């Protein structure tokens, strides 16, 4: 009985670990994305950090909007470490502090990636991030920069 349950538990863990293993593999890329109709072609590392830290960023007279993707824990941690260089709590406190000091709104946060894609499509100037591999599921989105790439040692 115990053996049976152990096998079942291991199988479940393997299934759950499959996407993570895949993304840990070579070629895993975190890209900056926006809607094709947004007209945004490229952002500097500084603009990206400012945008996601809640500071206003204009591009060709257009106000850009950051959209936070929390659909994947690892995706979010990579984003925190590679873009804003903060822990999750500190980042959220920072955003809150910015809203209190500068006004405006907190960047919208999505735990469902399809909803996030809809938001990008409906709101030109909205910028977010996702795995390169997931981008193929949303043809109207385009990658406008690479935020991180897994590299072999």
């Amino acid at each position: 009985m115990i053996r049976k349950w152990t096998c079942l538990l291991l199988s479940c863990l393997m299934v759950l670990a499959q996407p993570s293993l895949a993304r840990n593999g070579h070629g895993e890329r975190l890209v900056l994305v926006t809607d094709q109709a947004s007209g945004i072609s490229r952002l500097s590392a500084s603009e990206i950090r400012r945008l996601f830290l809640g500071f206003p960023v204009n591009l060709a007279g257009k106000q850009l909007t950051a959209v936070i993707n929390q659909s994947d824990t690892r995706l979010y941690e990579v984003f925190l470490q590679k873009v804003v260089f903060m822990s999750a709590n500190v980042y959220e406190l920072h955003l809150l502090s910015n809203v209190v000091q500068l006004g405006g709104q907190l960047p919208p946060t999505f735990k469902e990636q399809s909803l996030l894609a809809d938001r990008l499509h409906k709101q030109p100037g909205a910028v977010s991030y996702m795995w390169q591999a997931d981008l193929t599921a949303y043809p109207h989105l385009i990658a406008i920069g690479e935020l991180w790439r897994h590299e072999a040692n």
Partner: protein
Amino acid sequence: MAPRSKLTTFLHGFAGRIILGGAIIHLLLIPFLFSSVLFIVAKGYKEQFLNHVRHDARQVAERISEQTHADQIRAQLDDAVFSGRLAYAEIIFEGGGNIAALANKSSNETFNEDFYFGEHANNLYFIAVPFHSEPFQRAATLRVGYDETATQEQIYQAYQRGVLLAIGYVALSLLLVVIVTPQLTRPLRQLRDAARRIVDNDTVGHLRVNSSIHEIAGLAEDLERMREKLVNNAEAVAVREQRIRAIMDNVVDGIVTIDARGNIESMNHAAEKIFGYKQAEIAGENLNLLLGQPYACRIGRGESEPAGSIDDISRLAEHETVGRHRDGHTFPMEMAISELQRAEGMLYTGIMRDITERKQAEAELKALQEDLERRVIKRTRELASLNRELEHQALHDGLTELPNRLLLQDRLRHAILTAQRKVTPLALLITDLDRFKEINDTLGHHYGDLVLQQVAQRMRGALRESDTIARLGGDEFAVLLPGIENEADAIAAALKLISALEQPILLEDQSFHVGASVGIALYPDHGEDGATLMRHADVAMYVAKRANSGFALYDSKEDQHSVSRLSLVGELRHAIEYKQLVLFYQPKIDLKTGLVTTVEAVVRWDHPQRGLLLPDEFIPLAEHTGLIRPLTFFVLDEALHQLHLWQKAGIGLRMAINLSARHLQDEHLADKIVATMQQWGVAPQLLEFEITESAIMANPLRAMDTLTQLDVMGVGLSIDDFGTGYSSLIYLKQLPVDEIKIDKSFVIDMLDNNEDLVIVRSTVDLAHNMGRRVVAEGVENEAVLKTLIEMGCDMAQGYYISRPLTATALGRWLKESGWRLSEQNTPQV
């Protein structure tokens, strides 16, 4: 039940439960609580670590990016590693080559970037920060590693302190529970002890428990109230028990209580008296001691005991059995057992009654009842016999034993139904004897009854067995002839009857001719129901009698007479009341002087439709219906009134008035006559009453009394219609009569019939020899008158002298005819 260990006992107690409950709660909650706290603390440490390394790695990269020489870059890297800020630092250029800190602690570790604290389990957190020469053109990458050990130790220490804190908390809690719990349970123990004292009936002392816990204080108060109530209830129960005991001791029936084993628990005084035992000596003994041996019950005995005649006690409910007295004698007893379920087992209550006296009374009652039943049976038989006799009497005539009117009607109804079914005629004959009335009136009822019996016998002999002969009453009979073929059969039967009754009837050496008139009605020609046939046969019978034809068949034309006869009764009553009757007066002359001395008052009915009716047309009707009495009193009143008028006019006539046989039975006749005479001032010597011979002989003794009364009054008395009845000379001799009137049937034809002449002459001689005056009726010619004078007859009356006349006409007649009043009677002008 196995004895409990001390621990088990403790854990089942209130304190044990509190301690056990506290321990369980802490064991469940403390790990959860402390693990949650520790998780949050650890997470905080990790968050703090991650934020530090990400922020610091960027600052390191920014400072290095400001350096342009490789030596300076390495120097900064070494400085960071030596200072302990970093555990590893290296720059990898895109074009190849690298700069690594000399003091890298983990040169053996393979760089594998971490994104979580503790990832890859190498105690190092690797992080890479790219350098960009221009936007999105990476020139090199800074790889740094931070030591995770310090943070891990902090987390570990937090775990250690948390566990110690939890253990200390648990220990302190348990210590407090152990100290506080006994203080909580002490008042409960006191309450328990108090409750036990109450259970042991120790309810004298008041319950006092001091506790600051209001629930326990409230419980103590409730328990104290309960104790007080128990005390009160116990006192009430004791009083009630005494009362019940007193009642039981005064109950007439014996009451015995028995336990589940059949042993006697108690008995009342009545039971002691019934069985002769005292309660003290019988308590604990088995119930069977009180029962007769064959009736012992099974209660409380073992199953192995053979049943025999022993009954289960439950069958003894409301049972008559036999009781056994202490002295050994048995007696009949009534016993009722009822069951009562008690906590300690069944309780049976037996109610017992000595029924010796009742049994004796029942035996006596039974004997009486049997005797009564015998008498009832005997009486019932007698009544049945009597009923049969009564039924026979109800349906038969007692004198002739013939069916009576009721039975005739029943048979007639059945005969009509049969005739309807068979479509055959039937006949109903009504027979009336012609001269029975005279026989009955003259010789008395005894002879009349004998005649009727012989008539019935002859009628039975003359007809078929299937014919029904019934006596309707008096001398009237009915004959039902079923199954005849035609009218001729009915007439033949009628002739047979007439023939049978024409033969003289012999009674005590005397022969009597009765004769009969028969009326015949046929079904369905003369009526389709019994009542109609009876009425029509009756009508036919009257027709036959009037015509003296022997028999007559019903004729609807004759029926009118019957109807008129019935209506005449009502009209006659009306005529008497409204004085429609008129008196005529027929003179009687003295044959020796030729003078008119007396007039006979004769009544006529001046009927508004039928004209003047003669007495023969309504006097018989009056006699049959009882109207003769008022009619006679009317005549008496009118006649005396007229006599009074004549007296005033100086006409000295005597007045003769006819009396019916019924008047001789009237006790008040004399009083009425006296009163009327006084009313009109008429002397009794001027009044004379004529009574028929048959009326006198119907009841000679009664007639003698009445005539004697009249004679004493001084009125004259005359025997009317003499010779037509059966006079007894002995009676005739004794009767106080002054005059005998020879019936006109003898006088009218006496010159042509020698026998009549002999009778008239003999009667005249007989009357004279007896000292009576003789009057001849029916004198219709001079020859007869002369013959009567020659015979020495005293007086005469008849059409030759005068028909009956009104008072006015009589006055003219007295003036105009040759007959005169005596001088002394001549009216004084």
